[in-house]
Every structure is written in structure tokens, then in C-alpha cells.
């Protein structure tokens, strides 16, 4: 068969805030870079994100958090994926995240945090370097 592997990325927007511009910009850039992006809209709980990541068999989950709840939401997604045996799914994210919090998130298993103003080209480059098609 004609084999063709593509990166599949879930872009999710957890938390209560309604600012999805950043998430949409990232989703579009990833698509323009040839990736398949599953976009689920606003107000996703960590449970929804984990279930979606499993059903969609994504290679990475990109979270956009503007509400300040990143210290809770990021680790909850990582933990949920581990519990489901999907610990090889790369978790990265962006949003308004103070520099002081970044080491703690890294420790919790978040591979990369992009702060506001990061050029999308840089995000794509990082994904290309760090995410591989699973399976």
C-alpha cells in the first residue's frame, strides 16, 4: 500500500477563559506546515483532552491557557495521559505563563512552554524536532 505518515496534533483550549485566538493561530500554522490538527474548541476539561488524545491517536497535545490555571491544568493532562498508558504523547503549550512557573511545568512532564509573542515558525520548528509519528 502507499504508506503515508503524518503528524497528528491535538490543539486544545482548557480552562474557563474565552480567548481562543492564540490556539487558532497555532492550529492554522501547524496545518500550513502539513500536519493534521484536531481542534476541539473552548472550555475543555483535562478529562476531555485526554480522552480525545487517545481516540484520535495524536502524537502531541498543544494546550493554550490564558486563564492562569496552567499549574493545575497542564499537570492534570500529563497525568491523565500517563494513567491511560499514553505517556509517549508529547505535551506542549503556550499562554500567559510566568517564567517562574516554567521549571515546575517541565518537571511535571510538559515538554515545552511558549510565551506570548513566540513566532509561530519557532513553534513549528520545535514540533518538527521533537514530535514523531507514533505507532
Amino acid at each position: 500500500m502507499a504508506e503515508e505518515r503524518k503528524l497528528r496534533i491535538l490543539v486544545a483550549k482548557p480552562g474557563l477563559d474565552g480567548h481562543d485566538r492564540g490556539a487558532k493561530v497555532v492550529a492554522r500554522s501547524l496545518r500550513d506546515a502539513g500536519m493534521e490538527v484536531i481542534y476541539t474548541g473552548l472550555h475543555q476539561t483535562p478529562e476531555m483532552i485526554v480522552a480525545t488524545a487517545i481516540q484520535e491517536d495524536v502524537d502531541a497535545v498543544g494546550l493554550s491557557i490564558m486563564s492562569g490555571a496552567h499549574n493545575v491544568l497542564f499537570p492534570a493532562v500529563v497525568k491523565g495521559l500517563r494513567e491511560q498508558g499514553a505517556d509517549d504523547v508529547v505535551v506542549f503549550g503556550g499562554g500567559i505563563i510566568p517564567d517562574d512557573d516554567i521549571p515546575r511545568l517541565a518537571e511535571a512532564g510538559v515538554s515545552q512552554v511558549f510565551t506570548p509573542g513566540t513566532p509561530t515558525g519557532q513553534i513549528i520548528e520545535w514540533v518538527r524536532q521533537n514530535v514523531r509519528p507514533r505507532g
Partner: protein
Amino acid sequence: MSTEIVQKVLAGDVRATARLLRWIDDGRGEARRLLKVLYPRTGRARIIGITGNPGAGKSTLTDHLIRYFRSRDLRVAVVAIDPTSPFSGGAILGDRIRMQEHATDDGVFIRSFATRGHLGGLTSTTSDVVHALDAGGWQVILVETVGVGQDEVDVQRLAQTTVVVMAPGMGDEIQAIKAGVLEIADIFVVNKADREGADRTVRELQMMLDLEKVTQAELAHHGPVQSLLAAAEQRVSPAGWVPPVLKTTAVRGEGLDELCRALDDHHQVFLDACRDPQFVQARLRQQFLDVFRRTLVARGWSYLVHEDHLKQIVDRLQRGEADPYTLAEEAVKAVGGP
């Protein structure tokens, strides 16, 4: 490894199923092997196709249909297909936005796919995805597709019931005649009934359908004119069913009871038709031809890309050593295969 994943898929394990679907989508050789093992367990699912133009409201309707079948305690899988961008090869798959309420329900499995445009849709694997889910005991499989390209037509043939969704003011009625949608629809839904022009769309559709009926009666009267191949290309659907035209306002859940009733009615008609061996044979013939065509194309393609075969052929063509007909015949002979 293979038998382990088969066992898990058969047991409805979500992670294993998700992985198998990935292999199918990627065209991996393992997928075919596993599908052979799974095939005997297929044939139990109720497969419903939902097709129509982007923005017509298919995903919003699908969300309601999930709820309906869950209320009857059936396990529901959704296969949602969106187009791949022809420019980048990437895609944004956003159908889930309307269905996320079911994301954490164990009895619901939702999977998004991009069309990927495999050789113009000639090697689309959606029917394999449906078979895998069927074998895994997903009792209802809802397949959402956009438009009516070759791959969509294939999957809508596999569906037992196909719903064509339209919205007023999108010129959908005209589109419908052009795209041959009239033949594949078992149920028409004019969604966004809250918008102006819905009644007119319903009327125009109804008129076209009446016209179609006359033409079909005429054809039937003049006996079987079709070759076997032409018949195989046509959708096999139960005789005597008249596609209803329904109005819905999906965002408010209006008209959904009628849609669900029509789905159940058509399902019953389908089951009745399945008692006729000829009907079943016609469906199996189509399924086989679909797999056969995909196998041929995939085989041919892997021969062409292997060891520069394609380049060699084109070089000979360019040097004027042979004509494309001879070259194509030679290539087909060379493909052979186990």
C-alpha cells in the same frame, strides 16, 4: 503483537482501536493483515452516512444522533472526515467541536480523518475504518463526509442509510443535481430551518425528487438496460423507499425526532431487503469492487515508485522509444504480485 491488537480491538479497547485506525489511515501493510482477521466479525453494525456541504450542520446533527443512540444504550462510533488542504497537505479537523460533550463517554468513540487525497481518492481507506469499528462491536457507526467525491461515494455505498444535509440559501439544490446526490440519499435534511428560504429549499427538492421518480419508473418499465459493471457502480438501496425531505434546526434540536424516526424506518426497510439474497449479493459485489480497485491502484503505485520504475518509463516515453499504451500494459504485467 498482531493477535494481541486484534483481541483488544475485538474487545472494544479504545487505545488499540485508535492505533489500528492510524495504521489503516497511514496505509501500513499490517493494517491489511489485521483487517483480514477482523473481517469475519463485521456485519453487525448499523452504518449511517451523513454527507453535505461544509457548514450545512452535519456535525451538529451528528451530535444529536449520538445522544439518540446512546439513549437506547447502543455503543456509537463517529468517523468524521474533513478535507486535506491541497496547498500544505495538512488539515484542521474541527468536527469534534460540536460533539465534545460525548468525549468522555465510554460508549462513544469519535475519530477525525483528513481526506489526504490519496491518488485522487482512489485509495481512500474509510471503508476499512468502518469495518474495523464494526468488528470492534461499535453498534452504530456515523460517518460524516463532505461533498461527493469518489471516496465519499464509496463510503456512502457502504452505509446502510445515507442522510444528505443541506442548508437554505447555499445553492445546495442545484449542487445536488450536479453532484448526483439524489441517487445516494435515503433521507434529505434541510437544516437551519430557522433561516429564511428553508421552505423553498424543501419544495424545490421535493420537485426534483418527483421528477426523479418518474424517470426511474420509466427505466424500470423498459427493463434492465444496465451492464453488470454499470450496476456495480450504482448504489444498492432497498426498492420502494421514497426519500423523505425533513426540516431541522439542529442548533435547537428541532426536527430531530422526525429524523430519528426516518432513520429507524429506513433501517427496517434495509433489514427487510437483506432477506433477499440478490440484494445482499449486490452489496457484497460493490464492497468487493471497492477493495479490488484500491488493491489494484495501491499495487500499481508501489510498483511505479519502487526503484525508479516511473522515471524509467517516462524516460523511454521522452526518448520516443515507446507509446504510453504499450508502456502501461508492460507496467501492469510487471506489477504481478503475490
